[in-house]
């Protein structure tokens, strides 16, 4: 126990001085600077995103260029195909880079749209209360009653697959949880004294929401949304894996994984690669999201 006491004593002294020196975001930045895990995986994530954005510049070959004679070659083939070739002889590195663009878009875009829609619905439900709250939240409850994988598969399966339908399905999957988080946060803020005070001065509703509610609700919503991106990337690739998302020949990590499934006897290393890309991205995203949550937690 004695070590525990001395451990907590030092940060306490530092934290006493904090509020006067740094604002909220200053504190968040200060905490993140010393969180090496989050910084490392944040940098990795940035690298993955940059590589995806710059794929046309970075990719050594055309990701659609097939060749019968160089199918399923191992990494380092001819010293030019660094990660080998896939089942149709296309360069793996080029396809993984280009695949990043599609997979990341399929994962991130639905979360952004769902954050906008679900967040607004949640703030509306939380701030209006009463019948409006009831009707919005009960509809959300119904969508909440599906396991997320099942709902995504059901909607995109019924709509007939394709990248756009997959993204619509994922957006619908993520609206209910985001709406709930926004509603809970808004209900809490709404009952705080400064909101009452603002209303008592006669400030119009939209100004109260804009100045006092949004600022306090945005943090929890964004943290939660960031934790969904990893789920979204795995789900999006999963849809493509099932044949419900991106269609061939477009490179998508999930679709590539499925196409290479037949090649595990010939070229197991190449067959596992798209999954490794998904894994690294989703671990980075999860750890960055955890780090942000810890840094933005006002209570700690």
């Amino acid at each position: 126990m004695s070590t525990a006491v001395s451990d907590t004593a030092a940060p306490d002294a530092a934290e006493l001085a904090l509020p006067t020196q740094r604002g909220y975001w200053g504190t968040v930045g200060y905490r993140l600077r010393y969180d090496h895990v989050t910084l490392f995986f944040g940098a990795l994530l940035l690298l993955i995103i940059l590589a995806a954005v710059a794929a046309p510049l970075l990719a050594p070959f055309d990701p659609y260029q097939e060749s019968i004679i160089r199918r399923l070659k191992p990494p380092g083939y001819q010293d030019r195909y660094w990660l080998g070739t896939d089942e149709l002889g296309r360069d793996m590195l080029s396809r993984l880079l280009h695949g990043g663009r599609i997979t990341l878009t399929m994962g991130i875009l639905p979360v952004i749209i769902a954050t906008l829609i679900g967040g607004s619905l949640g703030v509306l439900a939380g701030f209006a209360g009463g019948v409006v709250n009831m009707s919005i939240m009960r509809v959300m409850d119904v969508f909440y009653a599906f396991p997320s994988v099942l709902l995504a598969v059901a909607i995109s399966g019924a709509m007939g697959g394709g990248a756009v339908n997959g993204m619509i399905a994922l957006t619908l999957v993520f609206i209910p949880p985001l709406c709930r988080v926004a509603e809970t946060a808004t209900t809490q803020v709404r009952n705080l004294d400064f909101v009452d005070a603002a209303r008592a001065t006669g400030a119009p509703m939209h100004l109260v929401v804009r100045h006092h509610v949004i600022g306090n609700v945005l943090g929890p919503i964004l943290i939660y949304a960031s934790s969904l991106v990893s789920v979204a990337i795995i789900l999006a690739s999963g849809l493509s894996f099932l044949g419900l998302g991106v269609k061939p020949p477009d490179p998508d990590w999930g679709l590539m994984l499925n196409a290479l499934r037949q090649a595990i006897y010939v070229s197991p290393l190449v067959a596992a690669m798209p999954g490794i890309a998904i894994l690294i991205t989703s671990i980075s995203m999860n750890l960055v999201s955890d780090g942000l949550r810890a840094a933005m937690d006002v209570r700690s």
Partner: protein
Amino acid sequence: MFGYVIRRLIAAIPIALGVSMICYLLVYLAPGDPVQTLLPPDADAETVDRLKRLYGLDRPLPVQYIEWLGRVVSGDFGRSIANGRPVIEEIQRSLGNTVLLATLSVLVAFSIAFVLGTIAGRKAGTWLDRVVTGVAVLGVSVPNYWLAIVLIIIFSVELMILPSSGTAGERFDPTSWEHIQYLILPVITLSMIPVGIIARTTRSAISEVMNQDFVVTLRANGLPEWRVLKHAIKNALPPVLAVMGLQFGTLMGGSILVETVFAWPGSGYLLSKAILTRDVPVLQGTILVLAMIFVVTNLAVDLIQSTLDPRIRRG
């Protein structure tokens, strides 16, 4: 308590109705007329009309829904377009396999994750805690359809000690290794995400309990550490069991990808085959049954939990 159970049951009815409504409307999400999936593309207008009347598709939507609901409640889910067999038979045949898979996966996950989480929660802040937290993050970050392929590469292709997919026979025989060996890889794969989630829950529950006053009192009374831990575990168990129950429901509806990779003849595999063949009645029926199982599991977890710990009762 009785009143609470009744209230929760009544609250579940509109949700179940809503779920059935979404499942019904899935047919209308499909591009084009639902009848077109049944007919060749060059069918003439008269045939289309006749089929529409036959299926009752010419009547208003709410009427159709209520009629469909009536049939579904009495166990008639229609017939599969792919093979003409009643959908309910297809679901009955596959559901048991998925229940088996989900139950075993959750049990395996719980046994691993509870130990890991307890160690981490007791030693919160140490390197052991970090290792466990790392494992937990890995568990929830792994795309399980990829893990399935990696396990097949290792155990079926390279080591050749376990079968890569399928089953040994229609009925599962728990006494025969022939049958059990097909289960091992799917169960390991499916337990990954629950391991991550249950370990996290256990860690936070144990570390919270360990900081409570009664633990200090127990220690001050000179109780050996393992008996202190016994008390802590008893207090930390309810939320962990609740999460485990919820994970069962999630796996029941979420095993579609893993079942597809392993060609495991469960409801998820049935669903993925129905998607490929655009077999809408099977798609609709399977999703409805799986979603209802999820609703019922969540309700059961809520009721059991509130019996054990009346403080957590919701409104």
